[in-house]
């Protein structure tokens, strides 16, 4: 079975929001209609987004660390939002595990958004239906696109390649390897939703110096060793050298 997902490397994300804007651009231009965007330049801008980059500060000054945290639908393997939908508009696609909303069946009751602990679903205030990340189904299923472009818009846009896309059920895929090798984790594991999207933790790049790297024990000429101190009567450098 296939489970498509994103793996987001928090160690690489610089918080540039390119994934947000590319997502909005692609998904507001598709066959499903526009994504609401009210007062974009006004005092109280609001709109529907599938993906947002949030920023958190970890620790207390001066030992703080800034974490940029892109958040979109996690395409849970056991999605709590799907069984609660009264109309069947929310569903998990059997062939690739993408959680989708059928906008023509959605009655806009918002119950699925209550059932998502991650706040991944947003109502479109104009179309009055629930919307969420589709992993760009209209890109990955589009055979007219070159193979390399059949990826979500956010993955294509990321300048630091912080976003990987692939099948996490295939142990040989890039995403599976990244999760396995780099400690990929899921959000809010306490609710048992088994998110398909994983995050790679921030990793500190530190130089560790061991004493044997400073003092060379195998130094045959002992050039690192301390030279014997000259006696006070011995000629100093000034006595033997004319400057």
């Amino acid at each position: 079975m296939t489970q498509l997902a994103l793996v987001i490397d928090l160690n690489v994300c610089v918080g540039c929001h390119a994934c947000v804007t590319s997502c909005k651009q692609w998904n507001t231009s598709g066959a499903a209609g526009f994504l609401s965007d009210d007062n974009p330049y006004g005092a109280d801008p609001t709109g529907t987004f599938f993906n947002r980059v949030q920023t958190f500060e970890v620790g207390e000054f001066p030992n703080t660390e800034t974490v940029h945290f892109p958040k979109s639908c996690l395409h849970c393997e056991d999605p709590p939002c799907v069984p609660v939908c009264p109309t069947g508009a929310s569903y998990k696609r059997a062939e690739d595990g993408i959680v989708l909303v059928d906008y023509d069946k959605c009655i806009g009751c918002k119950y699925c958004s209550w059932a998502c602990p991650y706040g991944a679903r947003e109502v479109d205030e104009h179309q009055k239906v629930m919307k969420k990340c589709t992993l760009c189904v209209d890109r990955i299923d589009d055979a007219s696109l070159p193979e390399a472009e059949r990826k979500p818009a956010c993955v294509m846009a990321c300048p630091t390649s912080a976003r990987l896309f692939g099948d996490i059920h295939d142990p040989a895929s890039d995403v599976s390897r990244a999760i396995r090798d780099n400690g990929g984790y899921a959000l809010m594991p306490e609710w048992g939703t088994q998110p398909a999207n994983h995050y790679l933790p921030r990793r500190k790049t530190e130089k560790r110096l061991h004493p044997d790297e400073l003092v060379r024990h195998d130094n045959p000429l002992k050039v690192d060793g301390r030279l014997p101190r000259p006696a006070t009567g011995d000629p100093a450098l000034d006595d033997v050298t004319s400057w």
Partner: protein
Amino acid sequence: MRPAWSVILLTTLIGAGQGLFLALYALDAWDAARGQASLAPLFVAACIAGSLGLTGAGLAASFFHLGHPERAWRSAAMWRTSWLSREAIVLPLFMALVALYGLAHWTGRLQGALVAGGFATAACVALFVCTGMIYACLRFLQEWHTPLTVANYFLLGTASGLTAAAALAAWLQPPLARGYVVAALLAGLLAYLGRLAALARNARLRPKSTLATAIGVKHPRIVQIAQGAMGGSFNTREFFHGRPREVVRAARWTFLALTFPVPGILVVVSGSSAALLGTAFLVQYIGLLAERWYFFAEARHPQNLYYQAIA
């Protein structure tokens, strides 16, 4: 959570309508067991009309919650998995069975009425369970995820229905009023105790999700700097009630006073006066509105962890 008036009205109105039907049918069944027929046709008609009116008003209110009310019929599809879907089926079914029960009574088919009423009672209990489970089944809304939610929907609805039945009886068939007054007091007390138990339970809850599990960074001190949008979003509007703490506290004290103590006193001193009992029902209903508002405002959704600071 932001309390939605459509849902507050839906749950309180159908609760009272269901309770009113249960009050009528309980007496009807008791009559049948004793081999008597003590119910005045006018009282039966008033109870049936009241029950259908209240549930119908609740059903109408629920449509205002939908973005696409014209597609509401679709909500019957997923009854296998969704409590909301089950409620959408059982509510009209309950109303139809109550209407059938009333019709049988009206045409004098008392045996048939008893059977129809039995089915309506089953639908009534099922509807209470469906309504309560819509909230109780959401496991990460810890304030709601308890059997007390279902129990309280049942008890509060039944209590307000019995108060309404007492008022109607005092007006149309005074000999019945005394029994209903006692039943309303008992049910009100039970409902009050159930709600207090839920309050006490929720006061001791500790959220399972923290910012550390939300973003997966193990540190006790994490502060949000930006939520990815400069203005509000659906996430900031739907999941925060946005009222000061004083308002929430006032709502709690209002419902603590109005769901049982005040209407209870009114019922006791009413001396089976229809006007006082009617006032007691209205006061209790206002208390239930406050109770339901507080029920929503009290629930802290874990998604709020991601929406602590605008920028």
